[in-house]
């Protein structure tokens, strides 16, 4: 999995180096927002009745790349996601593509794919949290003059995997959890 992340980085780097001629224009797109989702599970405290909870997590990320052509920019996205039971740092290859729009308002596509690490997560004793693959495609609106700073509002789908090894309970030999966070990510940001 980590290899895939490195591959993405490599691809992004190669794309950046592919620039010829005039020096490439640097692009930064920094966003913060929420990851919204639900979880449906059997609550053991209520006789295993199925229960649905809403979930909200904070997310920040910054995309740094280069403008490849008039519409497309590619680079590396670094982020931090505060899930309730995991603090994950996705490192991803990313791209932003301007789809349509008038001069000051652009609809753009966004795609980040990579691997999240749990470097900053602090596990309780007996637990071991590991990150996993992440993919985050979506659409956004950019408001601002072309070529200068702009505000963005992006609506994306984020899928994040994680794996937690847990301390077995008294009658267990082994216990682990495979997580897939499926979230709707709504982010505000600036890009220049």
């Amino acid at each position, binding site marked *: 999995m980590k290899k895939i992340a490195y591959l993405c980085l490599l691809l992004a780097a190669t794309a950046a180096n592919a620039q010829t001629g005039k020096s490439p224009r640097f692009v930064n797109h920094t966003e913060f927002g929420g990851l919204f989702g639900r979880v449906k599970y059997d609550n053991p405290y209520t006789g295993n009745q199925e229960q649905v909870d809403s979930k909200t997590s904070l997310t920040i990320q910054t995309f740094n790349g280069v403008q490849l052509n008039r519409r497309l920019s590619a680079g590396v996205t670094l982020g931090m996601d505060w899930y309730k039971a995991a603090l994950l740092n996705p490192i991803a290859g990313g791209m932003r593509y301007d789809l349509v729009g008038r001069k000051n308002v652009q609809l753009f596509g966004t795609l980040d794919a990579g691997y999240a690490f749990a470097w900053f997560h602090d596990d309780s004793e007996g637990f071991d949290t590991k990150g996993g693959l992440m993919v985050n495609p979506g*659409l956004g609106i950019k408001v601002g003059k072309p070529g200068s700073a702009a505000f963005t509002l992006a609506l994306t789908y984020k899928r994040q995997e994680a794996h937690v090894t847990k301390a077995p309970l008294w009658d267990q030999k082994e216990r682990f*959890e495979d997580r897939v966070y499926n979230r*709707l990510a709504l982010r505000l940001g600036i890009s220049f």
Partner: protein
Amino acid sequence: MKPKLLLLCVVAWLCWSCNDQCKETRVVRRFSNVTYSLMELRTQVKAESPRSLVQPGKMYVKGKYLYVNEIKKGIHIIDNGNPASPKFITFINIPGNGDIAVRDNILYADSFCDLVSIDIANPTAPKEVGRVKNVFKTGLFDGGGWSLNESIGAISDQNVEWVEETIAVNCEDNVPPTSWWGGIIWMMADRASFSSGSSASPQSSGGSNGQAGSMARFALDRNFLYAVSQSQMHLFKIDKPAQPVDFTTINLGWGIETIFPYNNKLFIGSATGMFIYDNTNPAEPKQLSNFQHARACDPVVVHEDIAYVTLRAGTACGGGQNQLDLVDVSNPSAPQLIKSYQMENPHGLSIDFPTLFLCEGEHGLKVFDVSERFSVDKNQLAHFEDMHAYDVISLGKTLLLIGEDGFYQYDSSNPKNLRLLSKIPVGKAI
């Protein structure tokens, strides 16, 4: 228009599908209740063709033969004349067996509530020669308990299985198992234990005894077989080895686990401490002292004036300490702690002074030089991590080790560098 429609579709789809999917997988002990008729069980002790190890329990050595318990099923007899290639000879089917002791040609084994004596003069054709009925009332195997129902002549047993289950969790909490109340009563669960007795070892008198591991619940001393259960010590008179006689029962208190006879004394490991009994008169052991410590599982071995006691915390034993205690027993009426050393998950141990072999469960085997009693931890000679170690018997130049994954023999002439002589892995076809 088109992009807006597309956007709408994407958003709608996203909103429908944003459910976190978290699955917790765990391997859980599952109990199922079964009832066996004693009448039937008592017909089932017989020799069968050799079979592979499935769930090895305790081991016992006498002469060139090894006796390895298959938990709750019976005993493998293994010809160990050549430690580099031990040979399975026979399997004695003994329902509800967990412990072994051998005096001369007679093997004593428990079979749920009964003590069975088996003639092994011809190890290829062992046969039952005696039986003391209904002496053990309850017992534990691998966390599942059994009890004797004398009125109807049956054993109510719990079978234990490990099952993998996967459930949806909320990605956050430490969700308890669905049947968390299922087994609290079996807190004391060890791999095999009886409400009355088991067998162990070294001392001899008259006949020739074998050697048991430190986890043993049977002990032979002179004309008696001592079997400790969870709360009692049963004495069987074995003047006529083939026909053991139920002699007396001594109440010990709760949580008895192991017995180790040494120099006319019985060292009994319990969940609360170590009892020392004076056994000068083998028919009447007298309690000299009770070395109390934290609650944990704890086998004992003794060399000269020092007792080595391990305390094991963990799921089955309660308690919160994993340690090796050195106890001065030069005055058996007042044992004194010498020093405690932190361990990981100590199970059985064996001493071949000055070398102490200590099983650390899934953490493998540790070897210590204990000649300097205050700095045992600084004299760790070796740590073998790539095996599961449950109990160990040191025979001087050979070391026998048993764990969940198999039975190992090592050349221990150089304790720093054990040399594997042979391994019988679990599940290997004969």
